[in-house]
């Protein structure tokens, strides 16, 4: 039992020092904001307390289990007989973890609202999760082959910016937002630990250079899914405006 809580005291202290500035900043702003509505003070205090407790628990779990095991799995796969297995494993892991990220549901709902139903929350969620899986697999390929990150990122962003020219106006902002949203607490801890463990196990691979970069890649995934759909929707709308119908099949004669 003792081992589960090892180091939690120091951790709690660190988190406390991180949270206190929020309270301080809020108090500093008091002359401008005037008195807070009564409920808000209580809610802020409760909110901060919950955030504190949650953060400590989360970080403890990450330190004692997620990071070590993630690295172990990455190392084991990379140094095993078939390192190539990392790629399909990455595909699976990325997909599954993306689906589990709490913020993805919220994103789906936002997009459904903004697209007025043209893009359903479910379609977006699955499409994004697939995109994430794909990019985690790409990250694994990077670990195995050492392709520079920029060689993937720059073209990736070029495609994203290109797509955003065709998508309806609100899409690019949401699309690029969704990257930051989806790279949540699980992706960033467990999945990153796997790539780092894998990179550490490969000879001649620098874990710093190859283990990292996963998050940057995953960041791209939702942007590409949302913008991909957005571009299709945008192009369809433009064709409609010009008087052509999108799915007309001319008679073959």
């Amino acid at each position, binding site marked *: 039992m003792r081992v589960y809580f090892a180091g939690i005291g120091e951790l709690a202290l660190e988190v406390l020092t991180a949270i206190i500035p*929020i309270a301080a900043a809020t108090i500093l702003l008091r002359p401008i904001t005037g008195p807070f509505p009564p409920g808000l003070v209580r809610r802020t205090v409760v909110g901060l307390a919950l955030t504190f407790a949650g953060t400590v628990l989360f*970080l403890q779990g990450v330190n004692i289990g997620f990071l070590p095991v993630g690295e172990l799995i990455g190392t084991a796969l990379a140094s095993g007989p078939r390192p190539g297995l990392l790629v399909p494993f990455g595909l699976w892991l990325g997909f599954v973890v993306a689906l*589990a990220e*709490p913020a993805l549901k919220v994103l789906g709902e936002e997009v459904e609202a903004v697209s007025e139903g043209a893009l359903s929350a479910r379609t977006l969620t699955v499409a994004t999760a697939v995109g994430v899986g794909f990019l985690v697999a790409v990250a694994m390929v990077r670990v195995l082959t050492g392709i520079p990150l920029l060689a993937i990122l720059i073209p990736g962003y070029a495609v994203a910016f290109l797509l955003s020219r065709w998508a309806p106006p609100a899409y690019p902002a949401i699309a690029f937002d969704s990257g930051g949203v989806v790279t949540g607490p*699980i992706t960033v801890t467990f999945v990153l630990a796997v790539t780092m463990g894998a990179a550490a196990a490969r000879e001649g691979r620098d874990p710093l250079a190859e283990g990292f*970069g996963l998050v940057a890649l995953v960041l791209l995934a939702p942007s590409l899914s949302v913008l991909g759909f957005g571009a299709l929707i945008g192009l369809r709308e433009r064709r409609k405006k010009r008087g052509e119908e999108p799915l007309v099949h001319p008679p073959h004669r």
Partner: protein
Amino acid sequence: MKRLAGQLLREAFATIAPIGLTVALLHVTFIPLGEGGLERFLVAALFVGTGIALFLAGVRIGLVPLGEFIGAILGRRGSRPFILLTGFLLGAVVTAADPDAQVLTTMVTSIMPEASAHVIVTAVSLGVGALVAVSFLRVFLNIPMPILLFGLYVLLFALSFFVPPALVPVAFDAGGVTTGPVLTPFIMALSVGVAADLSKGDPLADSFGLVALACVGPVLALLLLALFR
């Protein structure tokens, strides 16, 4: 109260179940975790899931209403320089408190023990703060989001050619890592309030894109840090 706790646990479970199952499966097939390893992992996963559920609740209950309140007041009463300053301050402070920021430091220092955790957190927080200010500036000047983002990414990519190549992936990762579950909702709540009163275009559309901009901050900060080390 009981219902809330039940819901919390259910959310926690849903978040970690996929990983828990995957790891358990691996443990009994290819990758055994050693003595008591699986048990330790499952407990850790429980901590993680519950921790996430707790801080998400904290964000929903306290931080988001706080952000909305401050944002609304800023929008109504603040002068532009003051709004920028406050955005900077709050962005920096909340970033430092975000659990993912701590994760970033752990990962960086595990690879580069000579890096100082405090320097990293400070740099990253300042980066996000600066970009929050930039995002408000964007609203004031009505610069279209995609153009601003494009310009910023060009800057980032250009900078990255002058930085030791091994440090580039960490820097780019920092963006996604630090825009975490605590910072993101808070900043969005804040900017909704500001945009509502000060947007020259569509306030709803203007309140998006903030996270994307905030993502750039840490990358910029770390690239600059690496440049001047």
